[in-house]
């Protein structure tokens, strides 16, 4: 079987969440199939500047084919178009312009996919929101498998992506919440899909003592790993942690690992260590009491999975459905939705060694059962084999509407659509929740997922919004929503 992995950026030095995800999957799938990576020459996700050489090269033993980006991103134009499509009524042409402005605009990559798609059995596209995935999927047609890495932001509300979600051959979701959200947006329940996520190569014997010695850390601490950015909820984290320091007699310090785009508060118990190598990162997590994940938007938190793999509990932002859902499903983390809950949960974790230990054990078990590489690889290979066996008898991806219809300003604002999406964490079926010493691992292996949308109305997770149940482009004025999508 020959598989192409298509990603916006690719390389050993590229550590973005989706890009790392793509690399891990490509490298692990290479054990079961012939894998080629198609990507751009860009290394920076903001400018998409061509920094890497065009053409074929080998990365960790895999052939990687790079294509040039035709133009760098213009931040001003992108911001203006973003405001238009996210906050106001707009047209499909506006959305396409937004996509081109976002990038990485690489017509050469799309052209290659169009010409050579039949050379591959399947093409696995990462990150639905970028130019390469949208146009690449249209070029590859029904050989496309999408790993959406979708977050609950306004982009998911854009009309152009609905035919993509409905038209690909299969979807590999990161979490039940992501699946519920995409089902609500695109009504694509009939498209084969699996909640997979990604594994991580966590060392079996991290060295917490070495880390403490190297960085001169004493006393218990909570760790944050990731980009230190307001978008990641770090500003709120600083405010909440300062309240914890002010109001309680707790002994925890906060250790920050990652590049900072924010000023770090000056406090002796808040330490910023900058970007660290993977080994140091794992040592830091192992040395910590807990990991804090303050992000509002996550499709899958790899660092939370790594903390669980190392037996550390997680304190997550409960306003992020995915993180909250992961915490509940794993029974391995607490979550907060305001300052008081943050402080109280932090104190609970700090003071209850038994609780911390139990959560850590649950986390380790959760990781082992759902995110070990053997499990992830199995889910991918099962899906590829299933798709290879089943005849492709369904429809193709809905084409774009005509020139005039594309310019009709009748698409709802992205933020408006997102506001109507179902929210709340997805839940594992109660019998398969992670409960130490009580459940059968074999049963958990086959754990089903109860989706919020499928819950009874009392759960409050019924999808809202007028787009529910439609496929293709959303046309609120037409009254026949499916009609234009089939043009």
């Amino acid at each position, binding site marked *: 079987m020959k598989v192409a992995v298509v990603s916006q950026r690719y390389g050993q030095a590229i550590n973005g969440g989706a890009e790392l995800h793509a690399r891990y999957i490509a490298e692990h799938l290479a054990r079961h199939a012939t894998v080629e990576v198609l990507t751009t020459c860009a290394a920076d996700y903001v400018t998409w500047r061509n920094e890497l050489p065009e053409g074929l090269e080998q990365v960790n033993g895999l052939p990687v084919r790079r294509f040039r980006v035709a133009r760098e991103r213009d931040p001003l134009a992108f911001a203006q178009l973003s405001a238009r499509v996210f906050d106001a009524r707009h047209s499909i042409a506006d959305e396409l312009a937004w996509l081109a402005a976002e990038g990485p605009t690489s017509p050469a990559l799309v052209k290659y996919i169009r010409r050579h798609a039949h050379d591959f059995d399947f093409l696995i596209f990462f990150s639905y929101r970028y130019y390469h995935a949208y146009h690449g999927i249209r070029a590859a047609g029904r050989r496309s498998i999408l790993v959406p890495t979708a977050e609950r932001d306004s982009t998911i509300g854009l009309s152009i992506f609905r035919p993509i979600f409905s038209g690909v051959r299969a979807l590999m979701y990161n979490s039940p919440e992501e699946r519920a959200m995409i089902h609500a947006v695109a009504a694509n329940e009939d498209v084969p899909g699996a909640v997979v996520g990604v594994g991580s190569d966590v060392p079996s014997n991290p060295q917490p003592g070495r880390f403490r010695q190297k960085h001169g850390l004493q006393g218990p601490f909570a760790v944050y790993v990731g980009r230190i950015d307001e978008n990641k909820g770090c500003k709120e984290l600083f405010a909440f942690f300062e309240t914890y320091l002010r109001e309680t007699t707790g002994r925890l310090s906060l250790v920050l690992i990652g590049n900072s785009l924010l000023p770090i508060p000056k406090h002796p118990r808040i330490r910023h260590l900058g970007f660290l190598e993977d080994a140091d990162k794992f040592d830091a997590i192992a040395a910590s009491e807990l990991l804090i994940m303050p992000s509002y938007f996550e499709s899958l938190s790899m660092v939370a999975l790594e903390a669980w793999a190392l037996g550390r509990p997680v304190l997550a932002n*409960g306003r992020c459905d995915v993180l909250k859902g992961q*915490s*509940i499903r794993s*029974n*391995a*983390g*607490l*979550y907060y939705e*305001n300052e*008081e*809950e943050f402080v*109280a*949960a932090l*104190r*609970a974790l700090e*003071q*209850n060694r*038994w*609780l911390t230990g*139990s*959560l850590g054990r*649950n986390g380790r078990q959760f990781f082992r059962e759902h995110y070990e590489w053997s499990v992830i690889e199995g889910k991918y290979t099962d899906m590829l084999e299933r798709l290879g066996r089943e005849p492709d008898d369904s429809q193709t991806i809905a084409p774009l509407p005509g020139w005039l219809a594309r310019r009709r300003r009748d698409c709802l604002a992205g933020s408006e659509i997102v506001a109507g999406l179902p929210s709340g964490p997805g839940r594992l079926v109660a019998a398969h929740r992670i*409960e*130490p*010493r*009580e459940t059968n691992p074999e049963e958990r292996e086959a754990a089903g997922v109860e989706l919020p949308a499928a819950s009874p109305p009392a759960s409050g997770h019924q999808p809202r919004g007028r787009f529910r149940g439609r496929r293709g482009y959303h046309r609120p004025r037409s009254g026949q929503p499916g009609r234009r999508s089939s043009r």
Partner: protein
Amino acid sequence: MPDFNVRADSVNVEQIMEQIRARIREKRGVDYTEQQIRELAAVKLERFLDPSGVRSDLLEQFRKVQPPYSPPELPNYAFEEATLYESHRGPLRFVRRLLNPILKLFFNPNPLIQALHIQSQLNTTNAQRETERRGLDQLHFEVLHNLVIETTRMSIEIKNLKMRVESLTGRLEFNERRARALESVVAYRPSTGDRVEPVQRPAVPQAEAGAMQASPQGAATPPNAGAPEGPGQRSRRRRRRRGRRGGGSAVGLMGSGAPAQAGGAVETASPSAGGESDSGPHAEFDAPDAREPDAPSEPSDEQ
């Protein structure tokens, strides 16, 4: 979260979060939503907390806004009977007077003259009144200003008094609780009037006497042995017995580290101060909270 409880062998994150939230609600007293809390936080604090400190620049503002009044210089006619026919030209005045009877054939000018005369007088009166009113306005405003200040002071004082009443009520309740708690553990000590002189006993060795002094409640001879029972004495004895059986010491109950006074009437029925007391299962949790900062730590007035 010292009161946070995890008892089960398996962890349920949702239950833990529910417990944490319940604890937060308990602390807050009222289950406000985040929005309500923000609204409350946005409310400005009252500016005047000390009623005597209330000052107002209302009057100055009024004086600034009001320019000094100068009555308008409008002509006012002294309208008399002949005013209509007046002229500074003599012949014209004569002709008008001559033709006056003919004019009166067409209409009667007398009511007109009368009305204008009255109007003239009214104008004069109004001008005078306006000037007087402007002067009075200043006075009215000053009175109003003083009233506003006094009302504000009074409302602040009422609030202060209300708070004081609430505080006193709390103290009173606390004292009542304290008195009840002390009553249940404090032994009866007869007053000097009730005390009967002990029977003359043979001299005891000094060491033995010292030991007896150190533990008066353990003395073999009751202080009022042989005396008739005084009023309420039976119930006091009953209380004392109850105290011996299960009641913790007052010191222990109140959470104070001060030792019982030697030779005093306080009985330490149980050797452990934190032992079970009559105050219920939450006694050791409630007692420190119930104490007010300025409350005495030793139950001195009962002894």
